[in-house]
């Protein structure tokens, strides 16, 4: 009865209201065109999809699907102004197909929008540039390749990771939420990794302490630039990304051989996860940690098969700037730096003063000048072939050592990468460095033997502190003082015997160098062997002093030695004496006056005079000298660039 009554009332109402309805219609009609399909605005979608009471639908196959979309979530998202069908673009009419196909073109839409914006004044402020860059990375990532289980879809599409309706702007609250959810999101597919991760320090910090700063998947793996985990670029990127939080650990790591090789772009050496583990990373005092004291040697052994106990005490993150933690390293570095700075300050001072004085003198016509009217025809034989060859091989092997060594030390520079790439990677570099080292040491001992034999042969007349000896004597001290007096214009330039004090210094310096560089180098030459004999920190010290001393040598040779021998005004641009063995008589008189006069007096001089060297030999020796000098200066430049840009 109630039904019948209400139906009648309803009908009555309907009939009565008809005329009014018609006028109402006439009033608004202009606003819309009913011949066209109605616009697909969000309100229409949300009528069904924002219904709190009916969040799920059951499909004909019986499966339940959530269709609910929280309106407030969309309104908070970066896409708040984009309409539903802006993304769900295959909806051309309502009602739409069910289930809805998920062909959402995030990448293409962002690309088109960015194309439109690029080059306009707004481009700089837009996030789209970043999005375009990230989508490009994604497109080249493994996630954009067909899934292994189903070739008809990609491994992971945008919406598999991004909560489609809830994309937050940078710094928005959603971002923080998503961060914490990241392991879950990636874990949907990468289940084992998720399990390991959740048990790790990183995972526990997120789940137990809700520490949003702890590393989530994307911090290490990057969000979009996901590579095959076994590929070199992916490994390197991972190692690099640890450093975005563990800055000190990364800095100290990069100071070690491991870090240098990694920085050069090679995966030969241990990277963070090789020692610390990846997903299941644990603190080093955790007995399950790969770097826990009990497990450490085993971890080293996974690359260094025959490594001795010394490896376990190697300070893989030793920091020579941290006195409290690494006093020995600190002191070693301090000592080396004082040495480097002291030596360089002294000799650069010497060079500058010399340059100044010689230029002053030359303006007044004092010093040694080439007589152009009477070109030099007489030379004095100063070095025989043995010494010339020794010097040549010494020079070459030293440069090779310096180049291959500093390209590791300065692994951060582009030139180092280029050099290492060119010679074929760190493995080849290690071999070249060792070959050059063996050459160097062999020459060193060969020279000792030759020198010893010479002294033995002349033992009757040889005076240890005599004029032919390279041992320093009192005259050298007087000469030093004399030179400085000359620099300051207090007296004329001292006169020298066969060896000047700077030549003696150049001669003895490699003894010191051979000691420091040689001993430390030998320790590192066969690390597996030496690690049975010495504790790990010795390797740290060895690496440190080896590098500092090598730097000192490189800079000294290519500045001070070059000036003393080649660049001082009376010699400029070069002296070829060490290559031809012959010194022009005039120059000889100027630089070794005492020996010259002694030889004249004893009538010995004639024995040592040689004819003017041939033009061909002259050119050849100039050529060789040029090549060596240019190489040396290039090396110097590279080293200075490296040193200046370090850290």
């Amino acid at each position, binding site marked *: 009865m109630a*039904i019948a009554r209400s139906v009648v009332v*309803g009908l009555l109402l*309907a009939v009565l209201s008809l005329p009014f309805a*018609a006028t109402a*219609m006439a009033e608004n009609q202009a606003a819309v065109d009913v011949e066209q399909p109605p616009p697909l605005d969000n309100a*229409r979608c949300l*009528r069904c999809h924002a219904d709190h009471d009916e969040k799920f*639908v059951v499909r004909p196959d019986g499966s339940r699907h959530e269709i609910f979309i929280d309106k407030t979530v969309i309104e908070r998202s970066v896409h708040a102004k984009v309409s539903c069908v802006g993304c769900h673009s295959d909806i051309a009419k309502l*009602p739409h197909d069910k289930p809805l196909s998920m062909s959402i073109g995030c990448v293409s839409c962002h690309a088109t929008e960015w194309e439109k914006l690029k080059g306009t004044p707004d481009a700089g402020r837009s996030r789209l540039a970043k999005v375009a860059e990230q989508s490009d990375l994604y497109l080249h990532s493994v996630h954009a390749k067909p899934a292994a289980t189903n070739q008809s879809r990609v491994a992971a599409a945008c919406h598999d990771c991004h909560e489609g309706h809830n994309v937050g702007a940078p710094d928005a609250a959603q971002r923080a939420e998503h961060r914490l959810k990241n392991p879950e999101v990636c874990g949907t597919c990468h289940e084992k990794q998720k399990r390991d991760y959740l048990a790790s320090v990183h995972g526990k910090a997120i789940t137990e302490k809700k520490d949003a700063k702890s590393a989530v998947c994307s911090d290490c793996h990057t969000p979009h630039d996901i590579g095959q985990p076994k590929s070199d670029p992916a490994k390197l990127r991972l190692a690099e990304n640890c450093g975005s939080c563990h800055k000190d650990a990364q800095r100290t790591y990069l100071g070690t051989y491991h870090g240098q090789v990694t920085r050069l772009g090679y995966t030969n050496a241990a990277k963070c996860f090789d020692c610390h583990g990846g997903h299941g990373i644990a603190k080093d005092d955790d007995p399950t940690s790969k770097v826990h004291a009990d497990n450490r040697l085993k971890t080293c052994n996974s690359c260094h098969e025959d490594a001795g106990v010394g490896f376990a005490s190697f300070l893989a993150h030793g920091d020579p700037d941290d006195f409290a933690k690494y006093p020995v390293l600190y002191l070693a570095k301090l000592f080396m730096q004082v040495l480097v700075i002291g030596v360089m300050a002294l000799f650069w001072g010497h060079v500058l003063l010399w340059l100044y004085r010689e230029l002053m003198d030359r303006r007044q016509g004092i010093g040694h000048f080439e007589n152009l009217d009477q070109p030099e025809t007489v030379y004095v034989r100063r070095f025989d072939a043995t010494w010339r060859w020794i010097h040549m091989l010494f020079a070459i092997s030293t440069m090779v050592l310096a180049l291959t060594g500093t390209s590791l030390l300065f692994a951060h520079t582009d030139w180092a990468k280029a050099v290492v790439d060119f010679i074929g990677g760190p493995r080849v570099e290690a071999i070249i460095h060792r070959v050059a080292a063996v050459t160097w040491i062999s020459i060193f001992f060969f020279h000792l033997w030759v020198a010893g034999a010479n002294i033995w042969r002349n033992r009757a007349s040889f005076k240890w502190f005599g004029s032919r000896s390279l041992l320093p004597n009192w005259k050298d001290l007087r000469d030093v003082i004399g030179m400085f007096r000359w620099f300051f214009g207090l007296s004329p330039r001292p006169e020298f015997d066969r060896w000047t004090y700077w030549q003696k210094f150049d001669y003895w310096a490699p003894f010191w160098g051979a000691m420091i560089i040689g001993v430390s180098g030998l320790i590192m030459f066969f690390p597996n062997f030496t690690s049975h004999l010495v504790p790990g920190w010795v390797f740290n010290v060895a690496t440190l002093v080896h590098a500092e001393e090598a730097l000192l040598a490189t800079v000294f040779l290519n500045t001070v030695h070059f000036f003393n021998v080649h660049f001082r005004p009376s010699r400029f641009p070069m002296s070829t004496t060490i290559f031809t063995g012959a010194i022009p008589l005039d120059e000889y008189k100027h630089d070794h006056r005492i020996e010259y006069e002694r030889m004249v007096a004893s009538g010995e001089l004639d024995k040592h005079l040689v004819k003017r060297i041939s033009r061909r030999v002259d050119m050849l020796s100039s050529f060789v000298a040029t090549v060596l000098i240019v190489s040396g200066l290039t090396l110097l430049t590279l080293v200075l660039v490296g040193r200046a840009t370090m850290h």
Partner: protein
Amino acid sequence: MRNVLMTAILTGALSGPALAQTNIETLARTCNGCHGLGGVSVGSSMPSIGGLPRAYLARVMKEWKYGQRAAVTMNRIVRGFSDDEIDALATWFAAQPWTPVPQQAPAELLALGKRAVWTTCTDCHGMTGGDPDRDAPPLDGQWSKYMELELEKYRSPDLAMPHRQMGKAVDEVKPEDASAAVHWFGAQKR
């Protein structure tokens, strides 16, 4: 005796479907009186039911049977049916073609109706009522008088109409617009 029983059971089991087939034909014929031959109604307050979606047919009849849906007549009719019979009837009627019965209506009413459909009803029924969404029946060429009565049921607070979303849609529009809309639907042919 045992044999006879066995035979009876076997025969019953084997001929079950065949029997049901004929029963459904007969059962469906009982609907003709009100819903017309093949479910194409000829009375303006009686809905056409031939060609409605099977799921819809089965659902509404079960809702009546279990007292979840308001009706003037149908709840009494389906009460006697088993769920299986309801499903069979639904299958039978769903297999019939949907045959619109286009009805005349004043042009202004149709224009008003079209507009109301354009704004509110098209998402679930399509512009002509011939493109129904999930859950909804076709409305093109359905009897408009019948449809107005159905809308009345949705509006009445005392009557149970379980489909919430359709109910909400009815509340969204003025009664006169809804009425015009069903006249628009009623005037459609395929």
